[in-house]
């Protein structure tokens, strides 16, 4: 991860792509919490990511990148609020004290962004075939039969992949890590 940050500081194209890949769930989740329309979300998220990519001062580590991202997202959302003066219409639940700086909503937004990024990453970690079937199930609301017809595979296979996906998502920490958690629960 440190190597990636160093390469990103040197504006390596592959590192930029990686940074985008890693950070877009954080940025999207955070910005989305303050916007209502998808188009607005995309514009502001794009602005956040572009600001991060064009940042000139080198980052020390990945955590600093993320903190910068949150700060930038907050400022960009604030500016958008002020610029468009459409707080009541386009931006939801943004209170007046939010505009003055850090508030509970902002920290909740960060928490939400972290949580969403964790969940998104765990979905991305699924095996390729399982992931493609899970996407159709989860995002497109397709039934097992529809997916089976769509992909030309047996319905049973779809069901197996679905079970496997849920199993992995619920129990990703297996083996020694789960055992350590169990031990910690016993002794702490």
């Amino acid at each position: 991860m440190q190597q990636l940050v160093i390469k990103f500081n040197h504006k390596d194209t592959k590192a930029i792509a990686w940074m985008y890949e890693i950070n877009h769930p954080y940025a999207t989740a955070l910005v989305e919490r303050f916007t209502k329309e998808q188009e607005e979300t995309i514009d502001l998220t794009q602005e956040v990511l572009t600001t991060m990519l064009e940042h000139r001062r080198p980052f020390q580590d990945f955590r600093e990148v993320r903190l910068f991202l949150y700060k930038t997202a907050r400022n960009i959302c604030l500016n958008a609020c002020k610029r468009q003066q459409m707080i009541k219409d386009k931006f939801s639940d943004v209170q007046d004290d939010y505009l003055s700086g850090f508030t509970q909503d902002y920290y909740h937004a960060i928490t939400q962004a972290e949580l969403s990024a964790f969940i998104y990453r765990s979905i991305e970690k699924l095996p390729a075939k399982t992931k493609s079937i899970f996407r159709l199930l989860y995002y497109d609301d397709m039934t097992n039969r529809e997916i089976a017809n769509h992909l030309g595979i047996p319905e049973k296979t779809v069901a197996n992949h679905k079970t496997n996906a849920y199993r992995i998502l619920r129990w990703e920490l297996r083996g020694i890590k789960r055992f350590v958690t169990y031990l910690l629960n016993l002794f702490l």
Partner: protein
Amino acid sequence: MTQAEKIKNTNQAIRIGKLIFCYIRRELTRRERAELNAWRTLSPKNEQFFQDAIDPEKIRRNMKSIEENKPLLWEKLREEYPRVRELKPPKQRSIAFRIMKYAAIFIFLLCTMVGIITYRFLTADSRSATPDADQLATISLPLFEFNSHFMMGYLSGMANLSVKEGEHGWFIARVNDGNMWARKKYYRLFTAKDTRFLLNFHDGTSIALNGNATIKYPTWLLQDSIYIFINGEAYINIPATTKHHYFFKISPPINNIEPSAFRQAVADKNSRGIQLESEGGVFHLMAYASGPATTVTLVNGNLRIDSVAGKVVSPIILEPGQQAKLDSGSLNILQPANIDSMWKWKNQ
């Protein structure tokens, strides 16, 4: 709010995000659960946020939004950074590949271990070993000494011995004719204090060693004359049908498994060494380096004494029941009574 407080709150928000994720997946430790509960009770807004965060439908909506926005965001990014290309998804390794990976690691470790053992075996003569060493073979690795089963397997592999563990501390080994790995070398084996070792040769010869004894014998046994060096107590049975001439040298072991006449001569001169030759017979040897005297007792068959304390003497042929005793440089032929009690240990 100061900068430090802002950073602290941001870090806490990041931490709570992780805890909620662990909560959803039931991976919280008790301490983490207590931390999360404390945060939830801090304010009603926190509790409301928590309930929203774990709502499956809301999670699905968030994920869907991120998923849908991703390609649109990527398109916009490409407009500004046309040189940036989409990352290729990582290759999914098949199970066969993973198995092969672990197999390769295992083979590598195995080869390394075999390499070390072979190296130590081939260079064993450069390391000294003391006669009272509590181990079965001078070529042993200290790392594995704790395990007699491993040592037996090790002796089977490297010293060409088929070793079995018998009762009452006996180890019974069958000596094979030759080892291509060490054709011109000698094996030197030790017995521990309460260990007894029975070596069976291919021609029916058997040598029983009592505890704290050393034997050195050639790796290549397909030859007319076989020289065996013994220090300690032994009971030797050479069948009359053997085609070999057995020469026994009773001398303290020298720290070299290469046959060297000079070194052996030096060792003989400074000891109570006797050289024996037999073409078939049963006899008992008592020749501890730290013991009072060297004795050879013939039970039956024939036995000839060729040299005493490093000096060639006119051959002395022992009769069954006679005992040759070398003490303080002089050799005496005795006729002891009740000789069977000498090798009682052999039948235990």
